[in-house]
């Protein structure tokens, strides 16, 4: 049974000069607890998909179903992590983490306790009263992860959350996130343009095509890789085989002719 399902989702961006079709008839479904990656060139609509699932934007056509009900009717929390941490610089770490409970008016001693436990779990004990400016990039992204997890989201959306970090921090954080998500059995969608990261972290990889954004191909990650932590996946013999396959797929895609992205509005006037 599918947990989250996208059925024929399309999305357009409109401007005065014309419109862009960002997504064209995108359909896929995810099982509960599954970790999938959306991989593709920039501008292929990966982030648009996340924004639609998160309810920040509404698709121009198609349906997004969570447990067979429209996602807009669902009360289930969705966690969204962005490329940058977007911690609020004027709030302390603990206040940043407790933002979700504050918004949903469930702030209490329980959530405070949970916040401190989660901060400990990601290796950040004793920073609660600090301000974000005193933390390094990796630490801040870990705080952002805690801020997302504290709401106990059923679906976690990760929009290139490691791309702004240095390589070492990124590898460490990948391990931490993968282990945490496995422990809490979260359904996760990761958007990335890093093939290695996609293989290392996910169960299934959707390769996306740009102009307009579509799902071009799906790769299943071998079971041996799924059970490893991201750091060790990269050393597994099967890793390179899958990497090469995906590389080839993305490479052929890149060589296809690029069609005009913005459809001029003058076409409409002629009709």
């Amino acid at each position, binding site marked *: 049974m599918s947990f989250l399902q996208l059925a024929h989702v399309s999305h357009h961006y409109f401007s005065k000069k014309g419109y862009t079709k960002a997504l064209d008839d995108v359909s896929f479904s995810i099982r509960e607890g599954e970790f999938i990656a959306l991989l593709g060139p920039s501008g292929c609509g990966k982030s648009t998909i996340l924004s639609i699932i998160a309810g920040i934007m509404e698709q121009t056509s198609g349906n997004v179903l969570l447990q067979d009900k429209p996602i807009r009717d669902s009360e289930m929390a969705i966690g969204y992590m962005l490329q940058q941490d977007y911690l609020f610089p004027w709030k302390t770490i603990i206040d940043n983490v407790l*933002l979700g409970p504050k918004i949903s008016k469930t702030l209490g001693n329980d959530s405070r306790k949970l916040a401190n436990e989660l901060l400990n779990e990601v290796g950040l004990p004793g920073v609660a009263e600090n301000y974000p400016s005193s933390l390094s990039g990796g630490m801040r992204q870990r705080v952002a992860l805690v801020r997302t997890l504290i709401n106990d989201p059923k679906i976690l959306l990760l929009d290139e959350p490691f791309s702004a970090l240095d390589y070492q921090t990124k590898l460490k954080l990948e391990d931490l996130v993968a282990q945490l998500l496995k422990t809490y059995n979260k359904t996760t969608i990761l958007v990335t343009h890093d093939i290695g990261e996609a293989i290392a972290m996910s169960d299934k990889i959707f390769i996306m095509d740009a102009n307009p954004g579509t799902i071009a191909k799906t790769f299943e990650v071998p079971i041996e890789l799924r059970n490893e932590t991201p750091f060790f996946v990269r050393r597994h013999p099967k890793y390179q085989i899958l990497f090469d396959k995906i590389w080839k797929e993305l490479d052929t895609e890149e060589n296809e002719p690029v069609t005009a992205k913005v459809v001029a509005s003058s076409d409409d006037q002629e009709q």
Partner: protein
Amino acid sequence: MTKNNDKQLFQEYKDTLKMEKKVVISWQLAILVGFIALWEISSRLYWIDPLIFSSPVQVFEVIISSISEGSMLLHLQITLFETIAGFLIGTIGGIIIATLLWSSKRFAKIMDPYLVILNAMPKVALGPILIVALGTGYISIITMGAIICVIITTLVVYSAFNEVDPNYEKVLISFGATRWQSFKEAIFPAAMPAMISTLKVNVGLSWVGVIVGEFLVAKNGLGYLIIYGFQVFDFSLVLSSLVLIAVFAAIMYKLVERLEGWLIKHST
């Protein structure tokens, strides 16, 4: 050995900073003293007409005598009260209007041309209308002080609200925040620096509004003293009022600067 050398270099660096500060302050004092001295000398030697330009000694005497008899304090109090009231009403009013504009994109679009016109219009030209409408008391003078800074505050704060990184709002929306919650948690605090910087501008503007208002109607206040001194040809009185305005405007500016430092420390 190297450690001593490091310390020595640091000491030298601190010394150059101190030296620089000393030079700047001495020049500042030199300009002030030089200006006052030149003024006094030119007045005594009749290079300038002492009847019109007075002299520092006379200005000083006027200030001392009018303060000791109490009349100057009354005028000063009234003007300060009007300025602070105008400043507060204008600033807070501007922030409230900016919030209303932010709360509805359509309202903001509708109001846009009117704000442009109101901003472009010299507000002091409204003086006579204010007096007719609100009478010749404090109310119209305070309104003058407020009206002169309310529009610019609205525009600056509203654009600051719009320039807040939309990703902060995205984070909140993904938590299910309402628009008002987004405003409270992200937009308003993020626009704090811009609001604080309008405070400084508004101090100067509300002085302009109040003094012009007092020129027009008042029977009290420093602006009134300037006009009165002008009418009875007592330029020592005019200049001593000017000196007091300069001193108190500077004090108010410095206080707002302190407040700014405090607010920044406690809001970021």
